[in-house]
């Protein structure tokens, strides 16, 4: 459709139609729920940590194609990452959606294709929800007990 494939690039549609890392982790160290009450995007991230590294990350939820694809990209790029890299990557995505270039030293994965969404300001939040949810979840990772965080975006 005319122009539509510029917003919903093939990579995005592919993540939307075959989401990576979708599911639940029963032994998660961090469970973080994020919600955008305005449009109804909702997702939960399940993260297991091993010291200062993400061992596994799964997500579950429902929402628009951009939000779901973004969560899938996040899951794909985060597994086995050290926590400080995770923080940098999440921040880099936030910055990218507000105009900054992605840092070249981070292996960001497919998320870079989301840059085009900047041209559609109301949809920026859709892309960011998984990443801000992860950031919120990580804030509480110091505690040694399992954490359940939920927030509205």
């Amino acid at each position, binding site marked *: *459709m*005319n*122009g*539509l494939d510029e*917003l*919903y690039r093939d990579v995005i*549609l592919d993540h*939307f*139609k075959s989401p990576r890392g979708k599911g639940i982790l029963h032994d998660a160290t961090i469970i973080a729920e994020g919600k955008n*009450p*305005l*449009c*109804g*995007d*909702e997702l939960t991230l399940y993260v297991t940590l091993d010291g200062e590294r993400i061992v596994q990350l799964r997500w579950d939820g*429902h*929402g*628009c*194609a*951009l*939000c779901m694809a973004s969560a899938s990209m996040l899951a794909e790029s985060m597994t086995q990452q050290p926590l400080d890299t995770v923080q940098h990557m999440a921040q880099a995505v936030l910055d990218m959606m507000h105009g900054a270039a992605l840092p070249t030293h981070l292996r960001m994965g497919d998320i870079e294709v989301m840059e085009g969404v900047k041209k*559609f300001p109301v*949809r920026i939040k*859709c892309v960011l929800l998984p990443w801000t949810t992860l950031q919120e979840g990580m804030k509480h990772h110091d505690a040694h007990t399992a954490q359940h965080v939920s927030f509205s975006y």
Partner: protein
Amino acid sequence: MPFDIRAIRRDFPILQTTVRGKPLVYLDNAATSQTPQCVIDALTHYYAQSNANIHRGLHYLAEQATLAYEETRKRVATFIGARSSREVIFTRNATEALNLVAQSYGRATLQPGDEILLTEMEHHSNLIPWQLIAKERGAVLRFIPVVATGALDLSRIDTLIGPRTKIVAFTMLSNVMGTITPVRELIQRAHAVGAVAVIDAAQGAAHRPLSVAEFDCDFLAFSAHKMCGPTGVGILYGKAEHLEQMPPFLGGGEMIHTVELTHSTWAEIPHKFEAGTPNIADVIAFRVALDYLATIGMDKIWAHEEQLTRYAAQRLAAMKKVTIYGPGLEDLRDAVIAFNVKGIHPHDVSQALDFEGVAIRAGHHCCQPLMRRLGVAATNRASIAFYNTFEEIDLFISALERTQQFFGVAS
């Protein structure tokens, strides 16, 4: 006058434009309607030839502007069948009109334990003002439930309405599902227990002929921008006997009779409720919108929209992955259709349609409690006006079919 859709469409410059290279198909009329050239001309004419503040100057322009402003008041009174133009108050929008009733009538009359009866399908504009005043006065909010077909469930109305009920406020027409509510019946039930009836006609006034005298409602609110008028003008109709008793809503210039340093007396109605310089230009242009609608005829508008809505609902219902919310195909529905496409979020649907020049709305439509009742976070909403055509519905449906293909949802 026959209903000539081609001629009507020529009256609206925006309907001749293209969006992203496609002819505009505007199906977001419940959010705001488009503006005919005659209304646009009235606005430019006002600023070019008769701009002045009203009710203040003794000069020619002030006199002309005042006359024209008061002319709209009379025109509104005729349009809604009010006995007198003293019962017509100009506000910024329907929302402000409803707040006026809650803040003035509500604050002056509600006692702790009194009840306000609303419905589960209210727009936030006819919910939040009552939440605010109920909290302040210790009043209790009660709600007429909505059933799956989008109708109000009146089976337990006797347990919801009683001697403690002081205000019954409800929409004429759901801005989500197109449900038409039993206005007369609810007004009679309100009056039977001594309560006042407040009608949210923000959608209703744009689509159906109405008469406040026939309804016998106590208050009725609507917005000019949903009926071919400019933005920034709302109307509150109130029975004079209430308005005369009610305290002012906002204070300032225009609404006073005499002012001392420590106290004042108020102007007569309706001026008591119009503090400060009002939206003169837009009020004056609104008369032209009402004349325009009256020339076409609200009955003809309603008849055309009814057919179009029925056709759109049938076309949508024929799509396997589409769920329509609210009234069934055989039930009465007015101008508004909420729907979802299985597997595609409403934001993606409306974004995809936008690329085809089709404007619909996606979201909660300022009705979060109703969304919860329907068990969804958001829906798509196509809403129709009298200037829409069957061809536009076809364009909308084929764009929707292409959207399904694009997102890999089999039709």
